[in-house]
């Protein structure tokens, strides 16, 4: 088995974008940030320590923000780079660099285990209180929680490859 840290090093731009997205949503929602590490050779490879959040909307955005940002960037970068390589078979180095960058970012779209668990508990509490967003987003939260559990099987990395290469292959 390839150690996760090696994959994280090979896909380091995704880690940085993931933490940047966490931080962005913290700042946007006025959540105090205690410490930030964008990348390091350790476990976890990056983190954002912030104050506890009571409001579910904020909790949801801070936890799921990287999922949206990383996924969007992955698609934006991979979609145009896919065509020359896969459709026309033109092997330009820049296309490969773009695909590596896009897939790296997509591979770190999933919220971390800590994010997933925190969101899961917050969603359950908020849904029980009748919070509309919690109820609407519950399937997504369940999916994220399940994906976190399945990250043992590299599902998070497969997701990056899926949206980076699989999605364009459905379009082109």
């Amino acid at each position, binding site marked *: 088995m390839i150690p996760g840290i090696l994959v994280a090093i090979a896909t380091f731009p995704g880690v*940085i*974008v993931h933490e*940047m997205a966490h*931080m962005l949503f*913290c*700042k946007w929602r*006025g*959540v*105090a*940030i*205690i410490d*930030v590490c*964008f990348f390091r050779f350790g476990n976890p490879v990056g983190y954002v320590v*912030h*104050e*506890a959040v009571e409001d579910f909307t904020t909790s949801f955005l801070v936890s799921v923000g990287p999922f949206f940002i990383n996924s969007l*960037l992955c698609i*934006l*970068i991979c979609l*145009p*780079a896919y*065509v*020359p390589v896969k*459709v*026309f*078979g*033109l092997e330009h180095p*820049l*296309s490969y660099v*773009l695909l590596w*960058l896009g897939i790296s970012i997509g591979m770190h779209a999933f919220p971390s285990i800590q994010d997933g668990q925190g969101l899961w508990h917050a969603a359950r509490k908020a849904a029980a209180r009748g919070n509309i967003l919690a109820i609407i987003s519950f399937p997504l939260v369940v999916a994220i929680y399940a994906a976190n559990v399945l990250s043992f099987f590299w599902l998070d990395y497969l997701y990056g490859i899926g949206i980076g290469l699989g999605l364009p292959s459905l379009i*082109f």
Partner: protein
Amino acid sequence: MRQVLCDLCKHTVPMNDAFILGEATVCGACCENAQKESNADAPLSIRQQIDPTVCRRCNSDGGNLTLPTVAGMPICEACYVYMHHYPFPAWIKASAVGLALLIVFATMWNLRFVRGYREMHGSMVALGQGDVVLADSMAHAAARHVPESLDLAALASYFDGLANLRENKSAEALTSLKRAGERLPPSFGVDDLILQARIGVAFDNKNYDEYLALATQEAKERPNDAGIRAMEASALACKYVATGNESLREQALASLKLAKDLAAGAPGMANYEQRILHRLSSREVINENEFNLRFPHGWQDGKEVQQ
């Protein structure tokens, strides 16, 4: 800063240096001694005391003022503002700008490939719908957008070949179609088109032996194709013109009859029939353009049709 009294040694220490050991307040030294003397099987309950007047982040002393808290920690006003407006490091800002520029650049750089793909796809759709003119223009546009693609160049050559065949420019058609045939799949029927072009070249060069050989070969492969049978009749007629062999004339008429029966009044057959009959009657071979110029209203039974 607040001071507390150690319950064990009775010394006064800063609150942030004191601990809660069970129920007692103790200084750091006493806490360490208690830990050493304790039974390893029964770990002590130790908590560090937190001075609510000292900032946990920058250690600034707030005097007697109780500071606001963030995540349960007393934080001074400056640190409170800083933590709520935690700045992105400069390298992260630069990277974000770089990433945004890269996405814009990559999109612009790859746009011609996306356009090329869309035009190629549009060309295939138009071809499927029988709109050869649109398919032709879209294939050429695609090849212009992605000149390094050999497949798109082949597709453009394919349409060049079709256009040249339509205009009876057989030699040019043959060149284009041979280029297309190297890359395009068999579903495009390039081999048949190449054969048509070779037949046209043979006719243009007055190489009637080859013209007849190719037409006969085609007729054997597709005996029920009216156009092929008419072409066979045309080749036989040409050979008759060149040799005067009556047997060839008879064969030409037989093939023409077969073609007419197979065509069952298909458009274009009448003109082709007239040209072959004119050839057999006049023993003169003229191409389609010349025939149409000379007999704009058609030709029947040895004379021009009048209108």
